[in-house]
C-alpha cells in the first residue's frame, strides 16, 4: 500500500496544520454568520461550539484508543462491515466535500470582492485550487511541513494586526455581554458546532501521525487554541466596528486589515496581510483536498488515494460554482452547518455503540471468535 510508504508526521507539524485549518475560520464568512445571530456576544459562540464538538471528540477518542494505529475509515470498516463502513465513509466524504466547496467559494468571493473585482470568479477559483492541488499532491508530510514553517509568521501577523488596531479597540462595545440572550447563543453555538467538524474528520489521519499520543495532543491543542483565537478576533471585530455596524460588514477580517497602517507613511498595510492570508488559504485547501481524496479513497478502497486528488479538486470547483452569489453561499453554508452538525455530533456515538456491541459479542463465551481479536494488531 502506498499509504504506508508515505512519511509520518510529527506532533508539532500536526498541531500547526490544525492551527491553520481551524484558525482560518477567523478570516472567512464564519464570523459574519455568527455575528448575525450572536450580535455583541458573537465571540462566545466558537467557544460553545468547540465545547459541544469536544464531547463528540472525547467519545470518538475512546474508541480510537482501543484500535491503535487505525484511523476512522479503518475502524468504521472493522465495526460496520463492508457496506456500513463504505456508507459512513461516503457520508463523511460528502459532508467534507460540500464543506470544502462552500468554504472555498467563500474565499474566492472574498478575493473577488475585496481585491480583484474585475477578474472572473472561475479564474480565481482555478488559481486557488491549482495551487492547493500542487501542495496536496506533495503529500501529507509536505502540508504538515509547510504549516510548521509558516505558523509562526502567521500568528505573528495576527498579533501585529491586533496591536496596530489596539487604539481603535473599545472593549465597552462588547456590552451588553449576553447579546441576544443566553438561550439564543447556546442554540447558535450548538447549531454551528460543525464549524469544528474537522475535529472528527481529522481522526481519519491517525495512521499518518507518528504516534497516537502526538495525534491526541496535537488535535486537542490545535482546536482549543484556534477556537480561542477565533473568539478573541471576533471580540476585536466588535470592539473596533461596534454592533450593529458589524453585521453590515461582509468580511470583518479583510475590513480590519484595510483599516491598518504602519505609521503615517505606509497607509495601505492590507496588502501585507492579504499576502499572508492567501498563502495560508492555499495550505488550508491543500489539506482539504488531501483529506477528501483520503476519505473517498478509503470509502471505495482505492489503492492510491493520491490519484483521486485531481478529480476531487475538480468536484470542489464545480460544486463551488453552483451558488449564484455571495449571499447564496452564506445560506448554503448555514444549511450545511446545521445538517453536518447532526452528522458530526451523532457519528461518534454511533461508532462508540457499534464498537461496544461488537466487543460484547466477541467477548461473550457463546461465540468465541479468535479471528476477531488479532485483526487490529495485524494492521498496527
Amino acid at each position: 500500500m502506498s499509504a504506508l510508504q508515505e512519511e509520518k508526521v510529527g506532533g508539532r507539524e500536526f498541531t500547526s496544520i490544525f492551527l491553520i485549518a481551524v484558525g482560518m475560520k477567523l478570516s472567512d464568512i464564519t464570523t459574519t454568520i455568527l455575528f448575525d445571530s450572536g450580535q455583541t456576544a458573537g465571540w462566545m459562540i466558537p467557544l460553545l461550539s468547540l465545547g459541544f464538538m469536544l464531547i463528540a471528540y472525547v467519545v470518538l477518542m475512546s474508541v480510537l484508543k482501543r484500535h491503535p494505529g487505525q484511523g476512522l475509515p479503518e475502524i468504521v470498516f472493522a465495526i460496520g462491515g463492508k457496506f456500513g463502513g463504505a456508507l459512513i465513509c461516503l457520508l463523511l466524504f460528502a459532508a467534507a466535500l460540500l464543506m470544502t466547496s462552500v468554504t472555498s467559494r467563500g474565499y474566492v468571493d472574498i478575493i473577488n470582492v475585496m481585491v480583484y473585482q474585475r477578474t472572473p470568479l472561475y479564474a480565481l477559483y482555478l488559481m486557488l485550487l491549482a495551487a492547493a492541488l500542487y501542495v496536496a499532491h506533495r503529500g501529507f508530510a509536505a502540508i504538515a511541513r509547510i504549516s510548521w514553517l509558516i505558523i509562526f509568521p502567521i500568528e505573528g501577523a495576527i498579533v501585529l494586526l491586533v496591536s496596530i488596531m489596539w487604539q481603535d479597540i473599545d472593549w465597552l462595545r462588547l456590552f451588553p455581554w449576553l447579546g441576544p440572550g443566553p438561550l439564543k447563543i447556546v442554540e447558535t453555538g450548538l447549531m454551528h458546532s460543525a464549524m469544528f467538524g474537522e475535529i472528527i474528520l481529522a481522526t481519519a489521519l491517525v495512521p499518518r501521525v507518528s504516534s497516537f499520543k502526538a495525534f491526541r495532543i496535537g488535535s486537542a491543542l490545535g482546536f482549543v487554541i484556534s477556537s480561542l483565537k477565533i473568539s478573541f478576533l471576533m471580540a476585536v471585530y466588535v470592539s473596533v466596528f461596534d454592533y450593529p455596524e458589524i453585521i453590515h460588514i461582509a468580511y470583518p477580517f479583510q475590513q480590519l486589515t484595510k483599516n491598518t497602517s504602519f505609521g503615517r507613511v505606509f497607509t495601505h498595510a492590507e496588502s501585507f496581510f492579504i499576502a499572508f492570508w492567501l498563502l495560508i488559504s492555499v495550505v488550508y485547501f491543500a489539506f482539504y483536498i488531501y483529506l477528501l481524496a483520503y476519505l473517498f479513497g478509503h470509502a471505495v478502497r482505492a489503492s492510491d488515494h493520491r490519484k483521486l486528488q485531481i478529480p476531487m479538486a475538480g468536484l470542489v470547483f464545480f460544486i463551488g460554482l453552483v451558488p449564484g452569489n455571495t449571499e447564496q453561499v452564506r445560506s448554503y453554508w448555514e444549511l450545511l452547518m446545521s445538517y453536518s452538525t447532526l452528522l458530526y455530533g451523532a457519528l461518534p456515538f454511533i461508532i462508540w455503540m457499534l464498537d461496544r456491541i461488537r466487543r460484547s459479542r466477541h467477548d461473550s463465551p457463546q461465540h468465541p471468535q479468535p479471528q476477531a481479536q488479532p485483526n487490529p494488531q495485524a494492521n498496527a
Partner: protein
Amino acid sequence: MTVRNTRNRKRNRILRRMLECAALLSLCLLSGCWDKLELEEQAFVVVIGLDKGPRNTVEVTFQIANPQIGSSDIGTAEGEPPSDTIRFTSSDILSAKELANTVITRTINFAHLKTMIVSEELARDEIFPHIAGAAIRDPELRREVAMIVSREKAFDFIMKNRPRLETRPHKYYELMQQRWMETGYVPFSTLNQYLQQQVTDSMFLAIYATARQHNHRVSRHEDAYLAGQVPKRAGDPVQMIGAAVFHNGRMVGTLTGEQMRWVQMLRHKASVDAFITSFSDPLEEDAMVTVRLFKNGNTKIKFDLRKEVPRIHVTLPLRIQLLSFTSLEPYATDPEMQRMLIKHLKEQIESELLEVIRLSQKKFPGDPFEWELFARKHFMTMPAYQAYGWSKHFKKAKVDVKVELRLENFGKQRTPYMQTKRKEG
C-alpha cells in the same frame, strides 16, 4: 538498439519536461491581465465633495492630485497645476467615478482618497445616509476617510481651498488631521465612525468647516466660535472649527469649538489629550488665565439607571499648566492664592461641562458623549437595552460633574512683574 531506445526515451522525457515548464511559465506571463493597474494611467482622487443635486441626484466633486508636482519629475510637468477639480452630477458616487472618465484621461482611483467633504445642505437632507451607505460598498473607498461638513457647497469649498503654504492637496489634509488631534477644536471624524454611530441611541460628530467668512464676531473666550466666525484677517480662507452633529445619519445641529473640546473631554476615550484654553481670573474681572489642559486618565462615568430618571456621575481627572495670566497676581508663590485659583478653575470647568451637557440634553435627540457604551453595560441583552431607549432617558437624566484638578506648573517665570502691576494699580 536498446541503448538508442532508452536514449530516445530520455530525450523525449526531457522534451516533455521542457514543454511542461514552458506551459507553466507562460501561465505567469499571460495571466493577471484582468485586474492589472498601470501606475501611469491612474488618477488619484484625494478629496471628494458631495452636494445635493436636482431630483435626488448628487453632485460629486473630485479633486485629483497631480503626482508630478512635488516630485523629481516636475521638469516635465512645468506649468501644470498641483491638482484639478471637476464636478459631475450623477445618481451616486460610484457612477460619477465612471462618468468622470468622459473628461479625465486616466482611471479614477479612490485608493488614496483621504477626505470627504459634504455640504451642510446635503448632510441635513434625508437622502444623505443613503448616499454614504451606498458609496461604502466600493472596496476602494476606505472607511478611514475623514469626513468634513462644509457650511457652503462642497464644490465651492474645494475650489476656494487653495492653501498657500501647501502645494499638494493631500498634504494639506494630512497635516490638518494632525492639528485636529492636537487642538480638539473639531472632532476627529471618519466615515467609519459615521457608519458606526448611525443607530438611534448614538450621535456622530463631524468636522465643521467653511471657506467663507460668516458673521465675524469677537468672543472673550478664544474658542467659542463656529466655522466662519473666527476673527482672522488674510491667510487661507478655510477655517475648521466646531462640529456638525449627526443623528440617525442626518445632521441635526452644530457645536462650537469650545463646546466640542468639552465634549471630547466628557467622552471616556478622548482623541485629544491636551489643549490650551482660557478662563476668567478669580481676582480681576477683566483679566484672563490661560492654561494648558491635560486629560489625566480616562473620564470615569458612573450610571444609576434603576429609577426612571437616570443619575450620571462624571469624574474628570485633569492636570493643568498655567501658561499666562494677565492679572499678574502672585499665584505661583502664594499657596493661599494658588488654592483659590484651583478652586475657581475647577468651578469654571465644571460649569462649562454642565452647560454642554444641558445643551445637548435640550437641543439634541441623543448624547454626543458616547455614554451609550456605559449604558449598555447595565443591560444583559441587546433586546433589553434597545427596549430601554437610552436617548430618551438621557434627555431627562440628572448629571453631576466632578473635576479632579492638579496644577502642575507655572511656566518658566516664577514671580510675576509686581512692579508693573503696582504702577497700574
